């Protein structure tokens, strides 16, 4: 498979961000922050009216896109910025494009966008392509 600068990366879509997944992640992260678990707490803090996805879940969505786009490849480096919250029930789409190709390494830029609210995460990654 060949890659070229400007190539789009096939999107990875989460049709509905799951509040149940947030409960699992509270256990994985050993962090029972109620803004991820209890909508009443989110409302009381003035942060919205739905539970808020844990930030690393959003990173995982973008990693999924990269792993699907480069089968057998390895994520060597990844940087992502958290620009806004993702809420339970959101439709989230990770997408990106190739910005550089150097031997067996591909550089990408990507974003995570939520339907109706735009980009909530953005970043860059380096993928090593395994022949």
């Amino acid at each position, binding site marked *: 498979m060949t890659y070229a600068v400007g190539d789009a990366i096939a999107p990875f879509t989460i049709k509905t961000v799951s509040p149940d997944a947030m409960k699992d992640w509270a256990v994985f992260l050993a962090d029972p922050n109620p803004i991820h678990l209890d909508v009443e707490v989110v409302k009381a803090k003035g942060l919205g009216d739905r539970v808020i996805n844990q930030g690393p*879940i959003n990173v995982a969505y973008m990693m999924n896109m990269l792993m699907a786009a480069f089968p057998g490849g390895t994520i060597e480096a990844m940087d992502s910025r958290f620009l806004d919250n993702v809420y339970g029930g959101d439709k989230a789409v990770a997408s990106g494009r190739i910005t550089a190709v150097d031997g067996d390494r591909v550089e990408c830029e990507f974003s995570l966008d939520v339907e109706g609210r735009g980009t909530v995460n953005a970043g860059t990654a380096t993928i090593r392509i395994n022949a």
Partner: protein
Amino acid sequence: MSEEPEFPPAPQVAGTSLDGTKTFTVSADENERLCRSVGVAPAADGSAHPVWYYVATQVAMGKTVAGVCETCEFDVEDGPMMGSSGVRFSAPIMVGQPYKVGGEILSLVRKKSRKLGVMDVLTYRLRLIPADGGAVGGGDAILETDNVWVLPRKELA
């Protein structure tokens, strides 16, 4: 002639150790649950989902999230926010492999923003090292991650 600063300086916490004392192992069951929770199947080659970089280092570092906030003289109930997360892998995280964590706070910088008012920007670095070899100092780490958190200082706004 110097002007009085608008707010007191951030606590001096750079260099605070975040070395962990316990090991962290991704089980096959946990990896499958995590993968399913984000919409993919687990890898067949024994590697864990790469996002475990964040989970493993947070869970096995030497302080809890609340403890890191406390070190920064910030109440976790005041709502720390993730600013960014970066990771450099030298090897994949493997299911069933025990790891230990080393790390430290790199900086805590007080700033003022139009959106958030006064805030402290916390940057810390964590490394994931196979538990059966290597010092937490870094040479044998399979990954290194830098996380940035924003700590809004409502009391200084």
